[in-house]
Each structure stands twice: as structure tokens, then as C-alpha cells.
């Protein structure tokens, strides 16, 4: 599946060097290092409480790391706010997707970055452009929506994820951080989202895919960072690790995975 290996040369898009984060006396993360390259998917795996969320928040500018360095294009960066990370091209698709269920798809798509037309007091939201671009961008991702006017709430979970990914890609994201995009989904829907992750990768983005499911991570990932209780259990390239090894290395191993699948089945549509 992962034929696009990226350029592989030069400085990686994003590099973490010994990142750590303390909350008071709690060490939430310690000594985390990995790389994100253009056209590659870096998977961050870990059970609940492993520090995945803290790591995302550092990458997306919500938290500042206590230790370590974050390098963008080989240069150290320091994000004080989510907006700064966003402006640097690091887009985060949160679990809650930052989408408003009762609003139309095109309104959600451009939320916070609305195109305008006209001038002075008559400056208005350019809805014609917004609808057109929404349709085109979703089409380019292979997302088949019926009507950009329908509320996001009427979309399925997988479709919503896809719209959020398409939105990040459209707004010039170079690094796409996906916070457990498949965790709330059924098996089939998860497959749909994995396909969009591959799409984003093939368009040259560096993708950070956070998950606790090795079966979702392995087929699409190029690099795997395993977290356990705030520490790195290793940072592996795809060739260094089989799916079985990956599964076993996750806390709880096969047993947990079986349980996860068993619990996932009734939700499958």
C-alpha cells in the first residue's frame, strides 16, 4: 500500500528531539523523538494514558514542551498558540473534528477562514466560492457528498473525518495530525478514513496518525512511535517491525486487540 516513500532526503518536515512535558509533579511525556517526512505517515501508538494527547497538544501549539526541541524544516520552532502552529502549516484534526453538526458542510469547511467579497461594510462571506471549493476539494479527495448545503450532522462518522481532512489539506497543511480518527468508527468506516489518510500522504503531506489500534496503523504507516506511560518504547521504520510485533508491543498485546475488535463489531454498519 505505502509505495510513496516521500523524498526521504534532506531535513524531515517535522522532527522531535527528546521532547518532554511535566504537569506539576506529573511527568506526562519524557524523551520522545521521532520524525515526520513529506509523503510519509508517522503513527503514534499507545494505550490510554500513554501520552498521545499530550504529544498532539505539543505539536499543535496548545502546550509548550518542558524539555526537548521541535524542529520544522530543520529549524527549531516554539509555538505559543494553536494559531501559530496552524500558520506554520501544522493542522490538527481533533477527535471532535472541530465541526459544528447543525451547520452546512460548506460553512464548516471554511469556518474561521471564510473567503470574503465586497468592501467596507458590505464585505460578505463569499458563499458561492465557498460552496464551489468545498465541492471541488471533497471531490479531489474522492469524497462523494450529495449536497454541500446539508448539515454536517447528517454525515456518517467516516465522512465527517474525511471532510475535516480535506479541510486541513485545502488550507495548506504540510503536516496533518490526526487524533484517533478511526477510534470511534466501525471497521468499514475506519477503512474509508485510512484510504483518505493514504490520499493525503500521496499528495505530499506529512501525516501524524495517532491511534491505539495496530491493525489500523500498520497498513498505512511508514514509521511507528510507540508510547507507554509517557515514555517511548521505540521509534521504528516500517521494515523493522511486523504487524504481529507491533500488536504484541502494544500494552496488553493480542488479548487487548481481540477485545477491541470484539467491542468494535456491533458498531460496524
Amino acid at each position: 500500500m505505502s509505495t510513496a516513500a516521500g523524498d526521504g532526503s534532506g531535513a524531515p518536515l517535522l522532527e522531535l528531539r527528546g521532547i518532554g512535558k511535566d504537569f506539576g509533579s506529573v511527568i506526562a511525556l519524557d524523551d520522545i523523538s521521532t520524525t515526520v517526512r513529506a509523503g510519509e505517515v508517522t503513527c503514534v501508538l499507545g494505550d490510554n494514558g500513554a501520552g498521545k494527547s499530550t504529544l498532539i497538544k505539543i505539536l499543535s501549539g496548545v502546550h509548550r514542551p518542558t524539555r526537548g526541541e521541535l524542529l520544522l524544516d530543520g529549524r527549531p520552532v516554539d509555538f505559543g498558540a494553536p494559531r501559530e502552529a496552524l500558520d506554520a502549516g501544522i493542522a490538527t484534526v481533533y477527535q471532535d473534528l472541530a465541526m459544528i453538526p447543525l451547520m452546512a458542510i460548506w460553512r464548516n469547511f471554511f469556518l474561521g477562514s471564510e473567503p470574503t467579497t465586497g468592501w467596507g461594510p458590505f464585505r460578505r462571506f463569499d458563499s458561492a466560492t465557498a460552496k464551489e471549493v468545498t465541492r471541488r476539494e471533497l471531490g479531489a479527495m474522492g469524497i462523494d457528498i450529495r449536497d454541500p448545503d446539508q448539515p454536517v450532522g447528517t454525515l456518517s462518522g467516516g465522512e465527517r473525518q474525511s471532510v475535516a481532512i480535506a479541510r486541513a489539506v485545502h488550507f495548506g497543511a504540510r503536516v496533518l495530525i490526526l487524533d484517533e480518527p478511526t477510534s470511534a468508527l466501525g471497521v468499514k468506516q475506519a477503512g474509508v478514513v485510512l484510504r483518505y489518510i493514504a490520499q493525503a500522504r500521496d499528495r505530499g503531506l506529512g501525516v501524524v496518525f495517532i491511534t491505539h489500534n495496530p491493525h489500523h496503523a500498520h497498513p498505512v504507516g511508514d514509521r511507528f512511535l510507540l508510547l507507554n506511560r509517557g515514555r517511548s518504547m521505540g521509534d521504528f521504520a516500517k521494515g523493522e517491525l511486523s504487524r504481529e510485533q507491533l500488536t504484541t508491543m502494544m500494552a496488553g498485546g493480542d488479548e487487548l486487540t481481540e477485545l477491541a475488535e470484539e467491542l468494535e463489531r456491533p458498531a460496524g454498519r
Partner: protein
Amino acid sequence: MSATRAPVSRPARADERVAAVGLWRRLLVKPELGSLIGAVVIFAFFSIQSSVFRSLSGVANWLDVASTLGIMAVAVALLMIGGHFDLSAGVMTGTTALTVGIVATELDQNIWVAIAASLVLALAIGFTNGWLVTRTGLPSFIITLGTFLMLQGLNLGLTKLFTGTVIVRGIADAPGFHSAQLVLASRVSLFGQDFRIAILWWLLATAVASWVLLRTRFGNWVFATGGDEVASRNVGVPAARTTITLFMTTAAAAWLVGSITAVRLTSVQANTGTGQELIYIVAAVIGGCLLTGGFGSAIGASLGALVFGMTQQGIVYLNWDADWFYFFLGAMLLLAVLSNRLVRRYAEAARR
């Protein structure tokens, strides 16, 4: 509605599915549909029974009742869509009217100076409401209940302090009164019937609010802030600024209504506007605003105010006991809330 620009999707199939959404369902998710049906039904009901109600003078009469209420309902609807309530909106119409009166009569200023001072005060109150709500994260319900009670006390206390009574009189004697009367309290003749100019202000407020809500960036932010504040902040919507602006808009609407009241009546009671805040919210809810925010319409709120005005005057024309008015209002509110809930479920229903 052509999908031909989308290279990967299948146009024929996509079009077929657009049609499958259905006209009925599309209409149902329009927030103002319920209030439109309500307004038509209530108009028909009273027109059939009362010739005065359907006469031009009758229409002018219930439009007048609806107008000042409508201006407030529209602003309150925007605030509700943005996810907040303003319980001080009613008493603020009193505060602004009293300010106009006191500055014009007790401080002997030109009426326009008084009106300007009143606007500054209103915006300051609105800003305080919004700032407290955004800074503390407390429910706006409780914050504005506080400002409501404080303003109620101030209205009475300051009026007594300045005039020695609970009423401000003699606004008509202020310099510049006639020009103010022309703008805020004159009548416009149409089809041989005089209509209050407040109706024009109401229509203007509805048009501007509707345009802002549906056609501007700010409108998008209002829906988003009310729909999910955290999510909208995550994508860069200035949620706090949006909320404060909405509170200031409500205050500005209260200023407009207060000024109209002061100039029209030329005297202002210290308890003016108290108790009206719930009626504004009722009108907005009848107009399709969800109590949880994120959904609603300015036109709907206007129609809600219209329903209110027609019912209030219709009951008078039919010589019914006015006590029934509140029964009807309550029934309409319940009906509106129930149908809004249905609409929300329709809009949010996940595709299976």
C-alpha cells in the same frame, strides 16, 4: 448544483442523491418555517372572527405592538444562536429610556446628546455582560440575571434621586425633540393609514440581522460559537469577541427601543421594560431558535414577534379576557419548543 467539476465523484449518481434529500426535509430544516405557519394560522384565525383585526387600522395596530418587540427579538435571537441569553435585555430598554429622559430633562441637554449618552451606556452594559460571560465561563443566564437585578435597582434608585418620583417627565420640552420625534416616533401614511415609524426600524433591523447572520463571516462565527464554542475556537474563530459583540448588539437594540419609547411617550416609568426579557426569548424560540444555541433565524424571531403582536391585539379585538393571552403564549411556546426539537433531530440524524 452540478457536480461536474468534481473529478472523482460520479455526477449522475450524486445528482440522483441530491434529489433524494427531498423538498419536505429541506423545508423542515429551515428554522423559520414553524413561525411562518404559526403566523399564517393566527392571522387567519383572528381575521375570520374580527373585521377590525383585518382592517388597515387593525393591521397598523398589531404591527406597532410587534415592532419594538421585534427589534429586541431579532437581537436576542442572534445572541441565542450564539449560545447565550440576556435576561437584562428587558430592563435595559428601561435603563436606556430613563437615561434619555434624565439627561434631556434633569441635565438640560439636547435630546440627541441624551440619546448618544444612552447609547454609550448601553454599549458599556452590553460589553460588561459579554466580558463577564467570556471571562468567567459562567452561564450567561446567571450573569445577566445579576445585571438585570442591578439595573432594576439602579433604574428605580436613580430616577428617584433625580426626579424625586418614579417617573421622568417632560422629554418633549428638550431641545431638538422634534427632529428626534420625526426619526423615532413619527407616523408614515400608507394606503390612507398611518403606520408607526418603529415598524420601519423593525423591518430594517430584521433585514440587517438576517444579512449579517447568513451572508457575513461574523454570521458564520455566530452559528459556530453557539454550536460548539471549543470546536470553533480550535479552528480560529474569535469566539470571545463574537460573544461580546452579540451582547453589545442586544444592548444597542435595547437602546433603540428605549429611545423610541422615551420619545414616543415623552415620559418614562422607572419600571419600563421589566419582565419583557422573557417575551423576547419566547419570540425567538417561536421563531425557531434552539435554546442550546447554534440554530435559528432573525426572520423567524421577527415572525415570532408578529405572532405575539397579533395574539395580543387579536384577543382585545375579540373582547376576550386578556388573561387568556398568556395561556395562548405558553401553549405556542411549548408547541414551538417541541417542533424545534423535531427539526433538530431531523437535521442531526446520521445517515444509516
